[in-house]
């Protein structure tokens, strides 16, 4: 079972929580300066180390050997960054069976050790990523400096090398025009806010990714706790906003949510953006306890399935935009029929 088929805390607002550590290995330049030979040498060292720790559960994905669709699909599930889709360099991803633990090899740093969990679960994600980072430190020579901590290619990752992020569903704050205000205060407090598909993406379907910017000068545990404090305020405010919305414009809210559900259950053609926004509405319906709505886990699986890359991967061929819209509508309709009948 994949992590996104599991339930997690505060799932009405938080879709997933990710923690990753940047780590580099002694005796090698940072990835952008490595030659071909050093690259494959380093990949071998890391792959061997991970497999020595846990030979059964990790499998290796060589990004170079994947086609565009497969890479898009990985990015849509947040396993690699969207920038990596078009990268020509040799990079690898080690990923465990449930897809919650992964090691991205030779991106900006030698290793990005990542754990992703359903709902708002910083403690568990932190523990999982940290355990793997610590274990890897016992079999690899990791670069560590007394003064600066874990050294990284980019100065913004130096210190703990920790980046913690959460993907939030915030239709209430959006609707009440509070999102700009919230985003501004998060940014001023040293947090990065992005859209669902990462850097530069618009805030589609009221989904936001929030992550820490500071990695140095605080312990990794402090960073996690600070993140928890900030996010719990945000979660509470989104719930308040939904309550306000429901109390004051109930009919309009119901109308919007049931219309979106009707579109998803009946459309013959549906573009990605419309599908994404309708799924966001349906997710809100689920959170408000409306009867006959699919579960969070099913909605997230669908969000993963309807991406441009994932839909083509599922169909097993390159599709033009209209073909994709047809395939997408069919897929969603089928899922909805199954989910609602169960």
């Amino acid at each position, binding site marked *: 079972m994949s992590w996104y088929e599991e339930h997690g805390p505060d799932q009405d607002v938080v879709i997933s929580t990710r923690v990753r550590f940047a780590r580099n290995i002694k005796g*090698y330049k940072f990835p952008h300066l490595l030659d071909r030979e050093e690259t494959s040498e380093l990949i071998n060292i890391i792959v061997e180390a991970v497999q020595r720790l846990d030979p059964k559960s990790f499998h290796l994905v060589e990004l170079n050997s994947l086609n565009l669709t497969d890479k898009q699909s990985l990015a849509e599930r947040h396993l690699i960054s969207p920038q990596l889709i078009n990268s020509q360099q040799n990079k690898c991803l080690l990923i465990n069976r449930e897809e919650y633990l992964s090691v991205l090899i030779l991106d900006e740093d030698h290793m990005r050790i990542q754990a992703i969990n359903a709902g708002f679960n910083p403690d568990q994600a932190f523990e999982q990523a940290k355990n793997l980072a610590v274990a890897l430190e016992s079999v690899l020579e990791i670069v560590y400096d007394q003064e600066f901590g874990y050294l990284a290619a980019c100065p913004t990752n130096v210190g703990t090398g920790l980046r913690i992020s959460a993907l939030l569903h915030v239709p209430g704050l959006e609707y009440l025009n509070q999102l700009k205000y919230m985003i501004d205060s998060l940014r001023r407090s040293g947090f990065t806010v992005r859209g669902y598909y990462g850097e530069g993406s618009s805030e589609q379907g009221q989904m936001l990714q929030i992550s820490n910017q500071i990695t140095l000068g605080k312990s990794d545990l402090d960073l996690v706790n*600070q993140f928890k404090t900030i996010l719990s305020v945000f979660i509470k405010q989104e719930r308040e906003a939904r309550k306000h919305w429901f109390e004051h414009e109930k009919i309009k809210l119901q109308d919007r949510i049931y219309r979106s559900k009707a579109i998803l259950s009946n459309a013959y053609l549906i573009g990605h953006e419309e599908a994404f926004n309708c799924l966001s509405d349906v997710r809100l319906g689920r959170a408000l306890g409306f009867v006959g709505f699919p579960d969070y886990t099913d909605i997230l699986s669908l969000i993963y399935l309807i991406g441009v890359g994932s839909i083509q991967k599922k169909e097993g061929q390159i599709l033009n935009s209209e073909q994709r819209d047809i395939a997408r509508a069919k897929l969603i309709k089928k899922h909805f029929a199954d989910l609602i009948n169960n």
Partner: protein
Amino acid sequence: MICDKCHKNEANISVKTMVNGIAENYYLCPECARKQGLFQSGFGFEKLPVSNFLGQALFNFPFASMSNQPTSIGTKSNKSVRCPGCGQDFADLRKTGLFGCPECYTTFHDLIRSMLDQIHGGHIHHVTQIASADVVIEEMKPLTEIEKLRSELQEKIKLEQYEEAALIRDKIKDLTAAETDETTNNSETEGEAE
């Protein structure tokens, strides 16, 4: 009562404002209130419990702006240091915004220190927009010679005067070395006294 904004819906929210000493009172329907980001009581936003300056410092972080302006400063300078680990000089680092290898942290130690100090507030004298009282106390302390040089170094980096920056960096290095010598000597004398 009819909404003062759309003149269509029934108003049920009363809004009182004070602008430039002039009090105003008007009435809005729920929809117009929402569009303006106004709510009825019981829906107040808390302030986020973190100070601003860490984020501010990062945005003013000189390295970030350097990597955005790929110019040739530093390349003509024969003073420009190359990292023995990766062969990069500071101009190379500026181009990519990335260090070349872990040894860069030693090679460009003082430059990096001043950059990182800004991120985590080590040298607060140069971080603007701090309003807290204990910071003022910090600022009133006289600066040591090294601290003075460090702040000068940051100024030079900001102004992109890298040759002067390199000279100051060397001075800091010498002073730090002298200081360490002193402390070692002192501890040796103490050791003898015991």
